[in-house]
């Protein structure tokens, strides 16, 4: 009845399927290796697209530039915000980096809704790619786009005389925090996309989410200035921990309030949970 029983063609995929039947630990290792490889393949799609058409990235450079140049310059002069030992522009630069990452990530699922309206998502879901890899690949894609923002914000900050920390380990830390932050918010975007399912509604939701996430955080002012209820909200906001980590890693003489360990943990756990949720929701996009 079946192909196997009837002795019909056994080809190389049968060997691939056999590998699945090995012992538990080998299987686990293979599953993880497969997850990583496939995540990178999905990310490769994004990188190739960016290489074909980088205009989007350049357009996205405008917003952080305006924030740093206009908002930053004015508020540095007003000296209205108590930023401790840091000048306001030093305080602001990591916040603006986190903001650009947030903006890139929160709208990242729009392209996924577009791919769903075509048949692209269908074809990816019909392939043997683990769902978690499809989702993580999209998260890492947003991370890659965000790394371009890092370069732009560093460049503008340098020109504005921000006291940047160029220690290689600190730079590596910035890269990791940006990748984690982008993952958190692009997965949030993906989750919302799976629920609202149209581009128009996702645009609206993106606008709706950006403002509270940005203003209920320590991005442009210290949390200590906020009323108590808003402080409580800000402490639940992953962006707060991203900015906190960036402030200690990016700025010479900057320091973390919550500790880098907690910052990494909050972002890491958020990203992991969101991945699990999104991996379950993603196949619903094509129903």
């Amino acid at each position: 009845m079946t192909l196997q029983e009837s002795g019909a063609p056994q080809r190389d995929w049968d060997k691939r399927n056999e590998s699945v039947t090995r012992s538990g630990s080998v299987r686990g290792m293979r599953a993880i290796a497969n997850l990583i490889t496939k995540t990178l393949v999905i990310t490769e799609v994004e990188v190739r697209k960016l290489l074909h058409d980088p205009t989007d990235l350049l357009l996205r450079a405008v917003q952080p530039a305006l924030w740093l140049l206009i908002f930053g310059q004015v508020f540095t002069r007003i000296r209205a915000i108590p930023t401790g030992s840091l000048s306001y522009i030093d305080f602001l630069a990591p916040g603006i980096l986190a903001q650009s990452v947030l903006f890139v990530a929160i709208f990242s699922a729009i392209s996924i809704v577009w791919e769903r309206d075509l048949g692209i998502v269908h074809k990816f879901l019909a392939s043997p790619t683990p769902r978690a890899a499809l989702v993580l690949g999209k998260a890492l894609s947003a991370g890659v786009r965000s790394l371009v923002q890092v370069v732009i914000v560093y460049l503008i900050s340098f020109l504005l005389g921000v006291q940047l920390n160029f220690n290689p380990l600190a730079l590596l830390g910035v890269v990791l925090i940006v990748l984690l932050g982008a993952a958190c918010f692009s997965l949030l975007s993906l989750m919302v996309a799976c629920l609202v399912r149209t581009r128009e509604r996702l645009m609206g939701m993106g606008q709706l989410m950006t403002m509270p996430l940005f203003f209920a955080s320590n991005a442009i002012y210290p949390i200590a200035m906020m009323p108590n209820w808003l402080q409580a909200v800000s402490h639940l906001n992953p962006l707060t921990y991203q900015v906190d980590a960036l402030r200690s890693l990016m700025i010479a003489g900057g320091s973390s309030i919550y500790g880098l360990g907690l910052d990494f943990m909050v972002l890491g756990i958020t990203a992991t949970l969101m991945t699990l949720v999104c991996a379950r929701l993603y196949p619903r996009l094509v129903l």
Partner: protein
Amino acid sequence: MGVTEQTNRQQNWEDQPPLQSDRPIIIQTQMLGRSFDQVIAVDALNLSVEAGEIFGLLGPNGAGKSTAIKMLTTLLPPTSGRATIAGFDLIRQSTQVRRMVGYVPQALSADGTLTGYENLLIFAKLYDIPRRSLKLRITEALEFMGLQDASHRLVRTYSGGMIRRLEIAQSILHQPPVVFLDEPTVGLDPIARSAVWDLMLELKKAYSMTILLTTHFMEEADSLCDRVAIMDHGRVVVTGTPAALKDSLNSESLNGKSLNGAAATLDDVFIHYTGNLLEAGGNFSDTSRVRRTTKRLG
């Protein structure tokens, strides 16, 4: 395509024995069904598709063809029944099933912002084609589809027919024994359409692939399919070879219902089993999807 060329390609790409006379069943569904809330999209589907045949799932829009294909490609979990594909259980062994099937969705599924080569490269990697044979496999697929000259152009510059060919190439890169094509020629002009037909016949001949396609073009079904099943309102109303179905209608017309003397076409069979075509035109989302695809491909 010349015969020698084909034999050559067959050795490179495929080492499958020739068609057997008693062909095994490669797709088997038992009472497979899917309902959305109160609406039954597919009702108790029983299909047996033999290895190496081109099987057509016909029916008006909204008959449940796409839902059936989505279930068989593991995109949509069935709400009742079971199915096996190439010996693997659709529900319990979905990952293995995914390795066994190729899928060309109805809507445009090649990425317009990548080149043809890149579209193939990504799927070759997702289907674990070994790194050393990656380039060769892609080059062969491009040649088979006649796309080698356009391989480094962005897909958004392709014509509708080229895009369909690329999509079919993507779906067979991993040499699956079964390929599902959902309305493969919708929105194509007559020339591109017959080119896709030739392609499918070649896939069947050269690689012994089993092809299950949905269509509502009876001419397509008649010239391509070894067997067809006509679906209406989620149920298969009749299954058979196009010739047998036409014959049965011819003999039936002798007993009363007249076809005005002409021999029955598959169109007549279709209308006979599904009733008035105008009433079963599919819903708004079906229509908008088909038109959108048509626009993009055209």
